[in-house]
């Protein structure tokens, strides 16, 4: 079976999920099924089919599982958001279409990813500007104590979502160039030149932690950087040293900077009577919602979302805490299936990295996959109290235009990378992969 046929077959479970999911939600809501579900499912599937045909035409050798997995996650997200708030699901569906459009545009515009290497400093500057923009007066807005959003007139978006792509591209190309230096340095003679990049990125991560007030993104970037460093140099010592530095820095700031300290306190004991109805409310409600889910969950559309007054019981239910609702409705089993889906996506991403022949491609694929996987870890870990909760979206599922579009660009890049890598392999071996 050709890779594209496999991709096509991969879309079948997606369509089933969309139609079945909407039906389940509608049944619990109105107790009769109308043809809306079929319409929604058909439109969604039509978009996916169109994207599939496009990939078939332009990237015939791309990894056949990446797109169906992403579509599966997006479909799942749409159903969940529809279940929480119908109007928001409509917006999300539009953004989904835009995302697919941007995927197509990226692939058309960027036939090959290697030119990216040449513009790395431009990209780096753009990335840093994007990351810093929320702090700019007049542009940025503070949400829940973190500076994440930017509003330009009626449009407001989260630049960090795009900044993360720029930074990963920069780091991949930078490390590709400097890896020789890093590898040659031996411990007795390690100089500033060797540790320089490490220190700079560490500094940037700490800066984000304190000034952007976003532990989640900070952890995400630095983790992706360490993954790249490891792939570039194959030296565990550097990676471990980097991790140690991050931990030490985070610990230091957690003890000295007030707002970081608060977050850590909430994380350690959200049920403290002084906090449980204030700062600890969100994480406490998240855990309560999960406890209600149990093994099998309450069922699609059955979760308790509103107080009798109509107010929401789970704050930010459709963005940060969407995982808690997934657990509430589908239980531990559903949550495991979701995490497994992300794991499969990550596995395909890393597979692309190993198949790539040149260093930059390898690093770029690794970096993109790592930042994707870490984002999942940061938000799901936050919701389940593995780490302090920070406002990051659950890729492809959470409500939020910036996140969804940025992740489709990420998907586009991975598809380009895998197309290239698999074609090169195919040519070398003289066969079809």
């Amino acid at each position, binding site marked *: 079976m050709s890779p594209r046929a496999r991709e096509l077959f991969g879309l079948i479970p997606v369509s089933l999920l969309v139609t079945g999911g909407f039906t389940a939600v509608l049944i619990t809501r109105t107790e009769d099924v109308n043809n809306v579900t079929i319409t929604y499912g058909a439109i969604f599937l039509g978009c996916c089919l169109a994207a599939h045909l496009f990939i078939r035409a332009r990237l015939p050798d791309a990894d056949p599982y990446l797109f169906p997995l992403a579509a599966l996650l997006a479909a799942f997200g749409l159903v969940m958001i529809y279940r929480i708030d119908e109007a928001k699901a409509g917006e999300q569906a539009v953004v989904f279409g835009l995302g697919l459009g941007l995927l197509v545009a990226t692939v058309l515009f960027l036939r090959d990813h290697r030119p990216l290497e040449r513009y790395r400093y431009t990209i780096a500057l753009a990335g840093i500007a994007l990351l810093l923009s929320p702090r700019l007066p007049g542009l940025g807005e503070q949400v829940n104590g973190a500076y994440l959003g930017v509003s330009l007139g009626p449009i407001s978006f989260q630049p960090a979502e795009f900044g993360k792509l720029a930074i990963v591209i920069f780091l991949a190309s930078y490390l590709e160039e400097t890896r020789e230096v890093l590898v040659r340095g031996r411990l007795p003679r390690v100089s500033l030149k060797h540790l320089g990049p490490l220190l700079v990125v560490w500094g940037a991560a700490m800066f984000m932690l304190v000034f952007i007030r976003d532990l989640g993104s900070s952890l995400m970037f630095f983790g992706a950087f360490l993954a790249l460093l490891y792939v570039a140099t194959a030296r565990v010592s550097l990676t471990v040293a980097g991790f140690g530095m991050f931990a030490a820095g985070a610990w230091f700031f957690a003890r000295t900077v007030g707002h970081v300290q608060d977050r850590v306190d909430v994380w350690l004991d959200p*049920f403290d009577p002084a906090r449980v109805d204030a700062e600890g409310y969100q994480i406490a409600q998240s855990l309560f919602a999960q406890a209600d889910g149990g093994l099998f969950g309450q069922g699609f559309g059955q979760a308790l979302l509103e107080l009798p007054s109509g107010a929401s019981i789970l704050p930010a239910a459709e963005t940060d805490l969407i995982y808690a609702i997934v657990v509430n409705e589908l239980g531990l089993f559903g949550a495991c299936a979701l995490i497994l889906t992300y794991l499969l996506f990550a596995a395909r991403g890393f597979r692309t990295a190993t198949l790539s022949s040149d260093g930059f491609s390898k690093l770029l694929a690794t970096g993109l996959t790592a930042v994707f996987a870490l984002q999942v870890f940061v938000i799901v870990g936050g919701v389940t109290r593995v780490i302090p909760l920070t406002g990051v979206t659950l890729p492809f599922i959470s409500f939020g235009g910036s996140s969804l579009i940025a992740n489709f660009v990420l998907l586009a890049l991975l598809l380009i990378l895998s197309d290239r890598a698999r074609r090169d392999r195919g040519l070398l071996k003289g066969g079809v992969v």
Partner: protein
Amino acid sequence: MMLVVVLFGLLVAFTSRWTVFEADSLRDNSANRRPLLEEQRIPRGRILASDGRTVLAESFATGSGSRRVFTRRYPEGTVFSHPIGYSFIDRGRAGLERSRNDALTGESSEFATILDEITSAGREGDEVRTTLDPGGTRAAIQALGGRKGAVVALEPDTGRVRVMVSLPQFDPNQVPEGFARLVRDSDAPLLNRATQSTYPPGSTMKVVTAVAAIDSGRYTPDSVVSGKSPKDISGVPLSNCCGEGTGNFGPLTLTQALTNSVNTVWAEVAEKLGRDTMVRYMKRFGFYEDPPLDYPDAQLAPSGVFNREGDLVDDGFDVGRVAIGQGGAEGQMRATPLQMAMVAGAVANRGKLMKPRLTERIVRQDGRIRERVEPEEASEVMKAETADRIKAMMAGVVSQGTATAAQLPGGVAGKTGTAEVEAGENNQVWFIALAPLERPRYAIAVTVERSQGQGGSVAAPIAKQVLQSLLRG
């Protein structure tokens, strides 16, 4: 890649922690309002009187779809307020609504299967059929006539509580809006005087003393004792002047001493029996612990001898005065109306004390009986012969003693009590009884707070009316 697997594994581990391993403690967390909110979405089962027709509590739906919630309604208003209690989202629960909450919400049903867990939709509460008799309950309310007090009537051989009335009552339908007012009210309408209030039992306590005296083999009903007054009890003179039995008596039998409620006799008998024997018999009757009623622990009080700090003591008190339902600085005898009904019940059931209960059976929505509450023996208080002798002595109290106002065809055996609360002014008046004499069907305890009268003149007529209603039905 390995690292990602490890990290994701961590996510799964923590998700399992919250959904499975620590789910119960999270659900019990006081900050968690979900259990309450979810219960609102379950139609609680009805609560019925013993006739199976009178609805004491039912649920009605408001809103639709995911906003549909159920609220409680109490068609009988104030009549069954204390035994039934209330259940409201903002006010919590009381009474049977609380003690039978699991059944009423359909929880922990033994028929629950994993399939029910998965579908989980349409959970319905079970119906609770109580032992409460509407006619007897109304008779008790009417007989109390607005005076603060309580009436408890039960079936001695089964433990079924047929009447539990506490005045003043409250309307459970008013609880959501009027809760603050009910809590503030100085008459304490939310208090169930039948189970929560401990009063000095006065001379009704002499029944316990008589049981101890005769069952221990130290006395018979015909034992002759001195009825002189005053008599030194614990070094302090006790006289018969202020209680019901007045004046100085010559030598008399125990039966006569009960008929005329002679304080000095029973105090002296108790001193001879000793504190240990008295406490042993009290404990057999169920004193010193919460009665084993299917009612919330928080709304049950134990009876016994209380020191000044309000703690139960079983030594060091003035046993002579405790034996006549009073006490002293070291310990004051206090009892709930429910406990005194149990005393009468144990005598009526030939010495066997049955566990009192308010629930007859629990029925599922499909009509299957989920649980039938069977009669259960709490303790063997005394020998059957002792019980027969005590009953005969108590019959004398009604036929020719202080409680002639309680006479009914078929015969009644009882004992009055009048405990002074404020010198010469207000009395806590009591009457405990069983009827009919042959094969007693009901045991009853009646008490009225701060009454100007006596047990025989105030409490006995109330008991008579309630017993009449019960025996008729």
